[in-house]
């Protein structure tokens, strides 16, 4: 049975901790600065500066976020079990009359809150500035971008929990976190493009769709490009047409699965470690 009070108490503690350590503030400011910089100087290579139309900016923002948010979310959550264990507080939680689910959901909810607050603050501030300079028409697209970015972050937060449960040593947590980020943000797409080249584009829509859906970074990219009415997406350095199967409701549903499945796996592994 789930205890809402326990989950709320733990989540509240996590959020308070992040707020007081200024993590939320630093991330919000970083988001805002990066977003504004890309929005204003994104055309610098072609000798121009200034705020552009949102569709022109969003491709650059998507690239920024695909590198920034995964490493941010992974590092936020990957040490969650080890940190509690090293502090001695993990045993306090486990000796309290709460279930494993309460503990994991409470921790997750707290980090989701911290991440969401910092993302909304950072992207929100820059979004207001962009919209003021480019027109109200950009608002809907930017809001969809923000929602996609938050969902994207939750995926990696969920993966970070799984990492924190699997690995008991801090050095392994760090190493695997970096590896996972590199793999999903860069190497996977290089491999996918390579596969397309080798098969001369003959993968087939279904297989290609499945391969894209297996990487939350690609799901996020496609969602953003779809919102702009695009049918191509950057995989690594190559622009590739994505299959017609890729619709927003499917992508959101798969994103949700990407959040839920790692958390479920975390729960079962964590429970097994302490109940065996």
């Amino acid at each position: 049975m789930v205890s809402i009070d326990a989950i709320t108490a733990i989540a509240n503690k996590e959020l308070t901790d992040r707020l007081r350590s200024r993590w939320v503030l630093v991330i919000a400011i970083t988001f805002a600065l990066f977003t504004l910089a890309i929005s204003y100087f994104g055309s610098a290579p072609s000798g121009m500066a200034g705020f552009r139309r949102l569709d022109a900016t969003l491709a650059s923002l998507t690239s920024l976020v695909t590198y920034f948010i995964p490493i941010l979310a992974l590092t936020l959550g990957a040490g969650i079990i080890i940190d509690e264990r090293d502090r001695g507080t993990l045993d306090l939680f486990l000796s309290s009359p709460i279930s494993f689910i309460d503990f994991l959901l409470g921790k997750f909810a707290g980090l989701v809150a911290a991440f969401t607050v910092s993302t909304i603050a950072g992207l929100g501030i820059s979004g207001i500035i962009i919209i003021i300079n480019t027109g109200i028409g950009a608002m809907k697209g930017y809001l969809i971008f923000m929602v996609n970015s938050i969902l994207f972050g939750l995926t990696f937060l969920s993966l970070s929990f799984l990492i924190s449960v699997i690995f008991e040593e801090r050095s392994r947590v760090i190493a695997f976190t970096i590896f996972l980020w590199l793999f999903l943000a860069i190497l996977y797409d290089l491999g996918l493009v390579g596969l397309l080249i080798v098969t001369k584009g003959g993968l087939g829509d279904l297989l290609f769709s499945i391969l894209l859906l297996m990487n939350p970074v690609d799901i996020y990219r496609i969602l953003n490009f779809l919102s702009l009415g695009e049918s191509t997406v950057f995989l690594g350095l190559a622009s590739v047409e994505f299959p017609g199967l890729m619709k927003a409701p499917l992508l959101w549903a798969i994103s949700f699965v990407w959040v839920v499945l790692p958390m479920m796996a975390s729960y079962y592994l964590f429970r097994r470690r302490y109940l065996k």
Partner: protein
Amino acid sequence: MLRVEDVSKNYNGIRALNSISFTIKKGETLGLVGPNGSGKSTLLKIIAGILRPSSGRVLMDDKELSEKDWIAYKGRIGYMPERVSFYDNLTGKETLRLFARLKGLKSFDLKILSGIISEEILNRRVGGYSKGMKQRLNLCQALLGDPDILILDEPTSGLDPVGTKEFYDIIASLKEKRPITIILSSHVLAEIEERVDRVAIIKDGSLKAIGGLSELYTGLNLPFKLSILPVSSLNGSLVDILKNEGAVEVTRRDNYIIATIAREDKMKILSLLMQKRDYFVDLTVIEPSLEEVFFGIH
């Protein structure tokens, strides 16, 4: 009240605990002693419900605990781990509020805890606490909700002698107020010797002995000591008598004769000395310390 039955625990092929069984009565204080790595903390964590045994079981009020029961059972215990640094960015009060909510408490009475840690300190962030303050906070969180069973893992670790005394004074005053069952572990034998009802000695994951101190040294047939202040002119005669009657060792310390006597000779020697009352001014029987019991087992 609490029964541990044939509890064993394996970690990655290593046997951390080996078929441990004992019972603790309500209101009793049980001391768990043993060297580092003997399995004390593992056993305490099993009793606290943090870990499950690989085999065996823990029974509360003669009832084996199901998974659901464990959660209810944990509401009745207070667990104090050996080392907790808590959260630097939270105040002591916020920390206690967190763990109070986890125990299902809407609020907690600061007055009960004021003898342990002041409200002024509780209003400060834990990051600024000394080690002693953190240990007090640790004890406070264990006491939230008036637990029936208090499980203390090396509770005075890192405390200075003053802090140690104050800690045990707090425990003693708690026991005066209500019959709380306490299980505490320590590797500082002298510290818990006078403060527990029974001692359980653990070595290499096995329970070597359990009982009151007198039960243990009697059961182990350990020698005891006599401290005798002799009449000065009869000093040498008394030494000869003790040696002739089979004293294991006779030494002098200041003006006293210290004789080590085998347990089976206790009645004989004491009877003899009662007949030789003129030979000494003062006589004290010194039973083995917990440390001597501990090394007697090892």
